[in-house]
């Protein structure tokens, strides 16, 4: 079992949650999301994000609108839908519970 792979698996599991969390604060376009995730070392390569976004959009968690850009192609701005917000709320709760569980497991003497 290799450590890089294990880390990647861990990151991947929470990536979905992180995307929703980032969008909970404000609408962002794809590259902003990428930068936020990259800055926090959640993704290494950008390509992995696109299937996730598309999947979340298709699941009704996200929607997007087009905005013109002064430099470059028009940008897709993503927003959380109501379903997305409800979904995020549940994930938040489960995340908190998870942290608690993990911490308490770690603290078992």
């Amino acid at each position, binding site marked *: 079992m290799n450590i890089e792979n294990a880390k990647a698996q861990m990151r991947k599991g929470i990536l979905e949650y992180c995307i929703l969390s980032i969008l909970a604060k404000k609408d962002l376009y*794809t590259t902003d999301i990428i930068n936020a995730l990259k800055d926090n070392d959640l993704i290494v390569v950008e390509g992995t994000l696109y299937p996730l976004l598309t999947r979340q959009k298709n699941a009704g968690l996200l929607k997007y609108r087009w905005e013109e850009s002064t430099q470059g*192609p028009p940008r897709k701005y993503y927003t959380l839908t109501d379903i997305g917000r409800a979904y995020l709320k549940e994930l938040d709760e489960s995340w908190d519970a998870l942290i608690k569980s993990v911490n308490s497991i770690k603290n078992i003497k």
Partner: protein
Amino acid sequence: MKKAIKINLSGIIFHIDDDAYEKLKAYLDTISRHFSNKQESKEIIDDIETRIAELFQERITEENQVINLQIVNEVIDIMGNPEDIADSGEETEGKRTFHDAYTTSKRLYRDPENSVIGGVCGGLGAYFNVDPVIFRLLFVIFFFAGGASILVYVILWIVLPKAETAAQKLEMRGEKVNVSNLEKKIREEYDNVKDSVKENVSRARNSETYKRTERAASDFFEVLGKILLVFVKVILIIIGTSLVIAGIGILVGLITLPFVGIHVFPFESYNFSLGDLLMPFTDPVSVTLLVIAVTLLVLIPIAAMIYGLIKLIFNLKSSNRGLGVGAMTLWIVSLLLIIGIVAFESSHYSDSGRDSFSQELLIGSDTLVVAVNEAQEEYLDDESIFDLDEQWYLLEDADAYYGRIDLDIERASGEEFVIEIEKESKGRSWERARENASNLNYNFRTSDNQLILDSYFSVDLENKWRFPRVEVILRVPEGKVVVLDRATRDILEGVRNIDRLSDWNMAGKTWVMTEEGLEKIAD
């Protein structure tokens, strides 16, 4: 020096090096191959392309406007390898395993690159490894034979997926989806890129407005437009196919014309061919050349039209320049050959000459009965295969060429009946013309007080037909009588008489020569 091409990424035009393009194309194709859901795959690829466009823009500088392989490699590093990208979306659909994606099975697709209407026939052709034209013809034939094929076509159109990715295109042909085949396929597609650049540019111009428009609305109009386009195409195909069938009919007819007999004059049911018709005028070699040249002169344009129509109907892009130039050359050579032969042959008609002969008819009677040689008339009626206004006869297994004579009746200066035979012909020179004239065969005979005239003179087969003419002039002394047999009505030509009867009406009557001319004395 390096070749660069233009590509359109999310509505922005980039100049990209040849090798860089191939690398990028292979990369995007590999990604899309990993997604089984077409709609989803297209969206993801679109998003990735948009991002790549941004990354490219960041890397274009004043000095370096062209995307090179290094930039593409950098961008691919940033985007990540296709497996990782595909992995992150795996939960949505049952992920296509490595094994599935590399399957060698053949699948039926619609072929968008080889489509007339929906690419169904192209896909069938690719699947069965047969020229799609065969399927198209079958569909058209079955359409005319009952129309069910349209339904079959529409069902196939709806049911069959379009082969869009390189992998699908390979699958359509049943080729192994492996790296080297993909590369081959991509290289083929690259060759098509130049053609689609123009299309891409116009799409790029429209892309911003396009994206703002509601997708549903644009889809609706796109579909409506496609349906209209198909409708027009179907009508064109039906019209075009009818034209092609008619054209092939004409072609077959014309090919056979010079060699096989046809009925030319509806009122004369004799068969003759172009060759038969030309034989009396010139030598067999020239006849053969002329027949071939005339055939080519007529066939080449018709064949070209049929070819053009077929190309139009079946959307064939390939045009064989060599073939076209060859056909055009052949056509011009044919034309020159015809002009040359005709010009050369026409010299045989430049001069005319005569050969005259006259003889007193010593019949010992004041009444001369003029009749025609019935045996000759019957012979020609039975044997002739071509009869131009009863003036010129071609015979099957001809022994000679025949022409009708003219008979005139005039006053004799002496006391005896005189027959004069004026033979006339054309020739290359005056001497040759006279020689040709003297070679004309004409016979008459007398028995008791009868003058029996052949209605026709003949030209031996080895002496060509140089517009010969034979005029027989019967000179009747004043006070003597001629009885014109009914059968002479066909040869009498412009005979003057006091009663002003036409040639036709003069025959079968009895005439006396007076001071003023011929006068009717009995019916």
